[in-house]
């Protein structure tokens, strides 16, 4: 036995000794998203959704008879390194039988390999890069639409409905941003649109005026940004500062009220964005959820419903398995058909992607996001 192992064992014995009576056995669901850092508002919204799902499940009775259900929330700080560390931590805990997470595709991608190796069910609520499910991991599921739908849908809207012929594309060089931007670019070229340029920015950077000034000189009809809201807000604000005209459109990463707050309502008026699913507020199947969520946590976040759905699915699989066993939970998930979820009857394809694949279109009006319509295929 190594010295470290002995130390760990000693600690464990110490802990067990300190508890007095034997604790009730627990079965755990892992949850990982950025809970600190600039993307924490998204992570917090997701965590609230997951919490609500767990509480609803507990209210319905023990998931596994005699075992307490527990949510283990970890923070990946939107960093792939932290994501892998969190995944390893969850994989090493025998009580964890399923994971809900992560938010960023760049985090979900490397983490999915670790969950696959640990034979543990992973359901990502919102990581939309299509490559993740093409790795062939049977442990991977996802409850949202993917960017090979989102990008082309946005391109069709920009080219056909906004009538923008000349478009400049910006992405944040992450798995999500670059992937979405490439899908958009390819689709736009297919629609005979002119791509004036496609450049990357660095997450965490603040000064985009040099890039926007350059773009302004090209006089684009529209700028498309694939990235997250902290950078999106600065782009929208600085776009107004440098006097860059035309339309501004982005992907689901922008869908957070903080975007409008940081960018100011004036500068963000008329900005368009797509979401990886339709408007939750309009789903009759989600009405009870929305009511319960808003009563407890306030306004519904962009990704709260997906996190609730993913967590509920994981709990459903654990309930079906009936025991704390990763393989049994996976097998139960594989057998799922017509699960009555928030967005209708959930089914998954052979890659683990949800068959409910709608793309929503929102715009900013008077300082708030307003649903325009569904623009999925």
């Amino acid at each position: 036995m190594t010295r470290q192992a002995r130390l760990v064992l000693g600690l464990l014995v110490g802990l067990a000794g300190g508890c007095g009576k034997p604790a009730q056995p627990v079965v755990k669901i892992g949850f990982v998203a950025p809970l600190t850092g600039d993307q924490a508002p998204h992570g917090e919204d997701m965590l609230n959704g997951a919490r609500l799902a767990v509480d609803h499940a507990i209210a319905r009775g023990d998931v596994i008879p005699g075992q307490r259900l527990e949510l283990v929330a970890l923070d990946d700080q939107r960093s792939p390194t932290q994501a892998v560390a969190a995944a390893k931590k969850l994989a090493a805990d025998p009580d964890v039988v399923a994971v809900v997470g992560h938010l960023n595709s760049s985090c979900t991608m490397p983490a999915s390999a670790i969950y696959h190796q640990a034979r543990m069910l992973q359901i990502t609520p919102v990581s939309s890069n299509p490559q993740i499910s093409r790795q062939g991991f049977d442990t991977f599921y996802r409850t949202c639409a993917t960017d090979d739908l989102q990008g082309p849908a946005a391109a069709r809207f920009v080219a056909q409905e906004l009538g923008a012929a000349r478009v400049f594309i910006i992405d944040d060089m992450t798995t999500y941003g670059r992937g979405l931007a490439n899908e958009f670019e390819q689709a736009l070229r297919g629609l005979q649109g002119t791509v004036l340029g496609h450049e990357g920015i660095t997450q965490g950077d603040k000064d985009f005026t040099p890039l926007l000034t350059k773009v302004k000189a090209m006089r684009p009809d529209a700028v498309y940004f694939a990235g997250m809201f902290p950078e999106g807000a600065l782009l929208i604000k600085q776009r107004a500062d440098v006097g860059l005209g035309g339309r501004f459109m982005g992907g689901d990463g922008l869908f957070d009220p903080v975007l409008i707050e940081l960018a100011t309502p004036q500068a963000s008026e008329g900005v368009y964005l797509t979401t990886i699913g339709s408007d939750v507020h309009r789903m009759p199947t989600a009405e009870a959820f929305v009511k319960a969520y808003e009563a407890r946590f306030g306004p519904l976040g962009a990704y709260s419903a997906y996190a609730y759905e993913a967590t509920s699915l994981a709990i459903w699989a654990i309930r079906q398995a009936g025991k704390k066993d990763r393989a049994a939970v996976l097998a139960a998930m594989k057998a799922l058909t017509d699960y009555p979820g928030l967005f209708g009857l959930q089914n998954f394809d052979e890659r683990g992607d949800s068959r409910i694949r709608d793309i929503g279109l929102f715009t900013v009006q008077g300082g708030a996001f307003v649903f325009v319509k569904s623009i999925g295929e």
Partner: protein
Amino acid sequence: MTPLQLFLQQLANGLTIGAIYALIALGYTMVYGVIQLINFAHGEVFMVGAYLALSVLLLLGISQPLTGPVLIGLLLLCAAAAMAGCGLLGWGMERLAYRPLRQAQRLTALITAIGMSFFLQNAVMLLYGATDRRFPALIPALRWDVAGVTITWLQLAIWAGSAVLMVGVQALVMRTTLGRAMRATAQDPQACRLLGIPVDRVIAVTFVIGSALAAVGGMLFGLYYNTVNFHDGYLTGLKAFTAAVLGGIGNIPGAMLGGLVLGVLEGLGAGYLSAQWKNVFAFVVLVGLLLFKPTGLLGERVADRA
């Protein structure tokens, strides 16, 4: 937009962020000048300055642009509060973290500075929360068109504010007794002590001045980008440090020049080459310059102290 107008616009963009880099770089260079310490917590002082200015605005409940004397008064109030708070922070940092290590190896103080930086980042995260905070846009979004080049009032305010401070610092160091004591301490603290110069107090004052300048930099940064985050001090601090090295560490006009040059290089690099290479470009230029002129743009070769 003609190519010339575009170039001038990019120059204006670069000079704005460059002016902020220069203000922060002054603190790095002044502290290095007197005690040969790279105060890696200086970037965090800058970030704290932004948060202090934000706190004043939050306390007064101001979230909309203002005009006239009210605006100027408020800006001065924010600047004063941020400078006072950060000055105190700089003084405390020197007194508690660096002075006890004055006789220790240089590396010890450097590690302490890095620890201080972590401490400040996490303290601000716990106090203000981990998410981006909106910094109210105080200055009206008015712009001037000078021959097709757009200049905002905010940019003018940043240039004016930093120019005043830089001239002030230069005058303080070159023309006052305190400045002379600082320069003397930089040359030989041992001899200064023998001559009755209160070296410890001079060093403390240097920290206070450097931190106060960074505080103004933080406030201007908040006004310019309208968001602040607890880890903003990291990258911006690193850039300012680069600016100080670029200009010649320990040299005050060098820090100002280095800041402006770095800002312009970044702006032109992102504007003409590629935005995704913005940071790479700035650091490549630094490495290139140091290869040929290791002392930086204005730095002079001085013999290492024993």
